[in-house]
């Protein structure tokens, strides 16, 4: 969690501190109620109304009967503000942590494990430290969780709403062109919840269990077929490539191997491939499972790269390898494929496997990196895993706090290999704040100076191919934080915000001496930046006044022809809207300069989808602004094909004619 997120949580908490609690819930009253309840229960009478209505009491009784024993959260539970007693014991526990055994991996090199015992040591020290921190006994602290059917069915395992693939290009004859998923790195495809190949629209339904295939060749949309997944498989997103569809998600899965060792322990990531040669009858042609929850994936040169987060929750047993070593295709990862943590303890791996689109029945290669809440940036040739140490549950015990650990793996035609490890101060806003170019890695971070206070500043770092820092600028924009960033060639742009929006431009042409070229101050800020042409940078964000009061969602166009003198040449504010999914998930945005089209969903009093165009004379023009129907949590996407624009949310698809944006059809799946 970033400091910014903590601040908002605190704000919410403070805002309710004065909210009065009803008298009936005061401890004395409650005890009276409980006593009465006890006595009436003993005598078999229906209790009198006391603090809550009779019907509710009766429902309460029914629920109590449906109590289910669930395995406890056990050692993982944080006993915040519980009592001063436990706080004392946790202080005692943590004081010994600095001296905990376990080899400290040098933070300059990427080291693999020599044997499973070594891996075990890291995992076990994590468990030990948790136990001492929270002073609860280890595996089964006897916590009974209250559960009932409703609660169970309300649970979802969908992943962060993400989007589609990109590799397939979109240059056909003008009127048959179609859009592709907005990606982080050009040429590296990403999965999404909606895809099109120009003839058909493929969309993941809100239940995460079905992908519908809709014929869009005529004005009347028509469902031709669909893919129904195994009832225990929750899809997160999918790719479309060369008549194949690759579904990625989480599978409830527990297998037992020939030695009666348990594999996967309840859940794993699944990659299931379908052949679409017969569009009326998609056929499953391969499945790969790997340990952990699905995180993200990429597609390049005919290979899928699939990332999952594997948490080691359960009790681990030294000789029961599947209890703590990750699996891909039911096989334990080799010791030499496991990279050790930078800390002396770990409870988590980031697992990555590659799968060939031509051979989707097995993984081509796999690695696991012991890290905590690592996130992924993929350049054309390398995978970077970045991990902010402050978000660690053991943060207080880390020797080095407030830094981002970087691990680099190269990838090529399915082959993965670890190459370097490094670190920088501060945290990254998102994957646009880290960018590889010409054998260097450029980063923009926000650094917190004093824990607990909001004192922060921002830094720019340049690292070489071995992830050694070769250039930097520190202490930029004090008390502000990075909201967005984007790099183009030798130049980088980033936005920080407190009250106004300085858009910084940075010259990286001499990597060892990065220089701030300019600083444009305007009200509001951009959450997402996208190059609209060589000379234009588009920003999507919020408009605020000088007091920080929100006016609405804002689009800005910046003239960057002279990076040392960036100008905001146009802006447009969408009143009454205070959020867009594009702020958080770039795949929700569709930006196509060739079609002069800027589309993204809006949230406010209603959910809408807006399409804008831009030209020098007319500036921004709203081409379409329509209500989104459908209520899928997965998110809204806009795609175009054959001069029609489709707005898709869950089970609802609406089609508009491009140009005048008249609605021509809709479909409920």
């Amino acid at each position, binding site marked *: 969690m970033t400091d910014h997120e903590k601040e908002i*949580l605190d704000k919410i908490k403070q805002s309710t501190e004065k909210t009065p609690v009803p008298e009936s819930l005061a401890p004395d009253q409650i005890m009276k109620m409980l006593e009465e309840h006890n006595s009436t229960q003993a005598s078999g009478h229906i209790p009198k109304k006391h603090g*809550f209505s009779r019907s509710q009491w009766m429902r309460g009784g029914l629920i*109590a009967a449906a109590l289910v024993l669930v395995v406890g959260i056990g050692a993982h539970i*944080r006993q915040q503000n519980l009592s001063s007693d436990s706080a004392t014991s946790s202080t005692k526990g943590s004081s010994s942590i600095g001296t905990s055994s376990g080899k400290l991996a040098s933070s300059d090199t990427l080291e693999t494990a020599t044997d499973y015992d070594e891996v075990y040591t890291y995992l076990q020290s994590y468990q030990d430290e948790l136990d001492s921190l929270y002073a609860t006994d280890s595996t089964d602290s006897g*916590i009974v969780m209250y559960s009932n059917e409703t609660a169970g069915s309300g649970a*979802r395992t*969908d992943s962060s709403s993400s989007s589609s693939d990109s590799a397939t290009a979109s240059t056909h004859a003008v009127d048959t062109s179609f859009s592709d998923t907005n990606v982080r790195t050009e040429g590296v495809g990403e999965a999404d919840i909606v895809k099109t190949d120009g003839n058909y629209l493929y969309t993941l339904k809100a239940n995460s269990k079905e992908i519908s295939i809709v014929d869009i060749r005529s004005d009347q949309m028509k469902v031709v077929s669909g893919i129904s997944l195994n009832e225990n498989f929750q899809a997160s997103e999918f790719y479309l490539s060369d008549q194949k569809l690759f579904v990625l998600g989480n599978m409830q899965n527990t297998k037992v191997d020939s030695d009666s060792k348990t594999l996967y322990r309840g859940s794993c990531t699944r990659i299931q491939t379908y052949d679409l040669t017969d569009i009326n009858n998609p056929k499953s042609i391969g499945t790969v499972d790997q340990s952990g929850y699905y995180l993200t994936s990429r597609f390049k040169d005919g290979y899928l790269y699939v990332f999952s987060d594997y948490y080691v929750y359960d009790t681990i047993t030294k000789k029961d390898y599947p209890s703590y070593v990750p699996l891909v295709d039911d096989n334990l990862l080799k010791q030499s494929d496991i990279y050790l943590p930078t800390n002396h303890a770990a409870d988590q791996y980031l697992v990555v496997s590659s799968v060939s689109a031509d051979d989707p029945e097995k993984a081509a290669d796999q690695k696991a990196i012991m890290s905590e*809440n690592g996130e992924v940036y993929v350049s054309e040739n390398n995978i970077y895993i970045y991990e902010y140490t402050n978000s660690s549950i053991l943060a207080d015990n880390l020797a080095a706090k407030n830094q981002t650990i970087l691990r680099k793996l190269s990838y090529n035609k399915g082959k993965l290999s670890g190459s370097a490890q490094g670190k920088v101060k501060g945290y990254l806003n998102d994957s646009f704040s880290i960018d590889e170019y010409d054998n260097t890695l450029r980063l923009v971070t926000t650094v917190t100076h004093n824990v607990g206070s909001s004192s922060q500043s921002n830094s720019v770092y340049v690292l070489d191919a071995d992830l050694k820092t070769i250039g930097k600028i520190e202490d930029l924009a004090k008390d502000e934080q990075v909201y967005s960033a984007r790099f183009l060639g030798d130049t980088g742009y980033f936005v920080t915000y407190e009250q106004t929006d300085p858009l910084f431009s940075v010259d990286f042409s001499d990597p060892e001496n990065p220089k701030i070229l300019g600083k444009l101050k305007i009200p509001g800020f951009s959450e997402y930046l996208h190059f609209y042409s060589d000379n234009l940078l588009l920003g999507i964000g919020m408009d605020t006044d000088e007091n920080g009061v929100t006016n609405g969602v804002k689009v800005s166009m910046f003239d960057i022809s002279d990076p040392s003198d960036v100008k905001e040449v146009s802006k447009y504010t969408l009143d009454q809207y205070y959020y867009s999914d594009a702020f958080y998930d770039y795949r929700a945005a569709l930006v196509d300069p060739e079609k002069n089209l800027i589309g993204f969903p809006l949230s406010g009093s209603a959910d809408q989808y807006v399409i804008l165009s831009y030209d020098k004379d007319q500036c921004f023009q709203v081409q379409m602004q329509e209500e989104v129907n459908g209520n899928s*949590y997965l998110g809204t996407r806009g795609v175009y094909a054959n001069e029609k624009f489709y707005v898709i949310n869950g089970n609802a698809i609406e089609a508009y004619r491009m140009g005048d944006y008249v609605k021509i059809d809709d479909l409920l799946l």
Partner: protein
Amino acid sequence: MIDAIAFKELYKTVYQDLYRFALCMMHHPQDAEDAVSEAVLSAYENIHKLRKEEAFRSWIFQILANVCRRKLKSRERTETELKEDHASATYCDGLRTDVERAFLILDEDDQLIIGLSVYGGYNSKEIGKMLKLNPNTVRSRRKRALEKMSWLLKE
């Protein structure tokens, strides 16, 4: 074994947070009060299953979260009307209007994630276990939810 006196002491340390959590979830003082009463009753009846006092807070929060979930489910059909109803009304004993609005723009799972983070002090892994959600999902949803909320919260 936790007796009535110990139960009362434990309850005393959490009940304000329990109520405020329920208020954020249910958006209505009476509903929040009912939810807490129900959770407390259920906890009391099952207190023998709790072996360690230290776990009381997380245990009762878990119970309350499930009570709120079920109650919300049962009124799901009228949710839209309720939202409109609640959004337009101001309650003297309820949440501050801006906080109320900030919660109302979230879906139910996101409300739970934020409520449990604020009042329960849980991290993403713990919430993931409780709600049977992927911890990644919890993290990304929390981030997004907070971002949405931040613009509605007044200083």
